[in-house]
């Protein structure tokens, strides 16, 4: 009798733990589903403009209203469009990195920040985080145009306005991998090496 109870007990533990692992896995999958289905409040599937395709065109006023910024189409520099939100801690972590990228890559790259929401909140964030070196765009259409689901999200466009890399960016490494993707798109290996040397010198 005792032995039977012990075996049943052990079996039940295995069953309970397996059921809990299953429950957790299901909850995670549902979370991923929600994320895919509801980027920034609009119903759509994660497709968006693909790498290699021309980026959708926008011309938007900056947050402070003293300039207009063109996204997409030919430009004299590449553009890094960085989607962020004042309430996203990971975005805040990346700001110093963006600042240094903006400085060191100035010769070929323009960094543009983008978000959506109420202007006063963003103005306060803009002041406090000292984002004056960057054009800051406030537009829901921009996020929808690039099918941004999760923040912080970055899109890298070349001088012709084609998307060369894009994706979710959680760390310095992921941000740099966008540049690597662009560099690897260079015509030849020699070009690629030269380009890297340029960067090291910069």
């Amino acid at each position, binding site marked *: 009798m005792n032995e039977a109870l012990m075996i049943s*007990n052990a079996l039940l533990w295995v069953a309970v733990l397996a059921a*809990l692992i299953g429950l957790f896995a299901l*909850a995670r999958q549902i979370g991923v589903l*929600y994320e895919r289905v*509801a980027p920034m409040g*609009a119903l759509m599937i994660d497709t968006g403009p693909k790498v290699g395709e021309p980026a959708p065109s926008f011309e938007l006023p900056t947050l402070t209203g003293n300039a207009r910024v063109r996204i997409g189409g030919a430009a004299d520099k590449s553009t890094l469009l960085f989607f962020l939100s004042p*309430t*996203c*801690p990971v975005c*805040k972590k990346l700001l110093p990195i963006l600042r240094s990228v903006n400085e060191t890559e100035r010769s070929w790259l323009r960094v543009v920040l983008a978000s959506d929401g109420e202007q006063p909140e963003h103005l306060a964030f803009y002041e406090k985080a000292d984002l004056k070196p960057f054009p800051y765009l406030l537009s829901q259409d921009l996020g929808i145009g690039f099918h941004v689901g999760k923040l912080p999200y970055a899109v890298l466009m070349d001088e012709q306005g084609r998307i060369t890399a894009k994706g979710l960016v959680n760390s310095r490494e992921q941000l740099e991998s966008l540049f690597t993707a662009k560099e690897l798109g260079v015509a030849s290996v020699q070009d690629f090496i030269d380009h890297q040397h340029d960067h090291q010198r910069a």
Partner: protein
Amino acid sequence: MDALLIDPVLARACGSALAVILLLGAWQKLRDMAVFEAAVELYRLLPDRMVPLFARALPMLEAAAGAALLLESTRGIGLVLALVVLGISTGGVLINLLRGHTDIDCGCGGADGNTRLSWALPVRNAVLMLLAVAGAQAGLARPLVWVDFITVAGGTLALLGIYAAGNQLLANHPRLMQLRNGS
């Protein structure tokens, strides 16, 4: 119910589950300090100069509480530390809930660090505090046999599983609401 509450098996399972939760929480925060600092700042409770200090002190305290709960001799200190850590974080959440400033990351790790503030968080923390109280009890003095150790191990893992699943559902909830309101 009283007899059940003070059984040492139950006490040990609650205590070790909470210890693991605290240690993992501390590790998550210390691993990505910049993110936790930003999360603390978003709570808008501390002057800017205090934020880095607080963002370092809280996870340290959390880790100390977790470690102390695991050892028999320091269990009492562990309980106090755990209640202090949980009390401070719950207080921060409550203040922001009351002033309606809920659209921020809770900074409490959980699922991918995407959990928004909601009333479910204080409830969750209250349950964790109960776990701490139960886990700090010495429990009824009865001879333990080997099956009891399996029960403690199984119970600890089960509590952790429930906690992880609950956290994930908590993180999912605002997205579900967004979906409902959007359609």
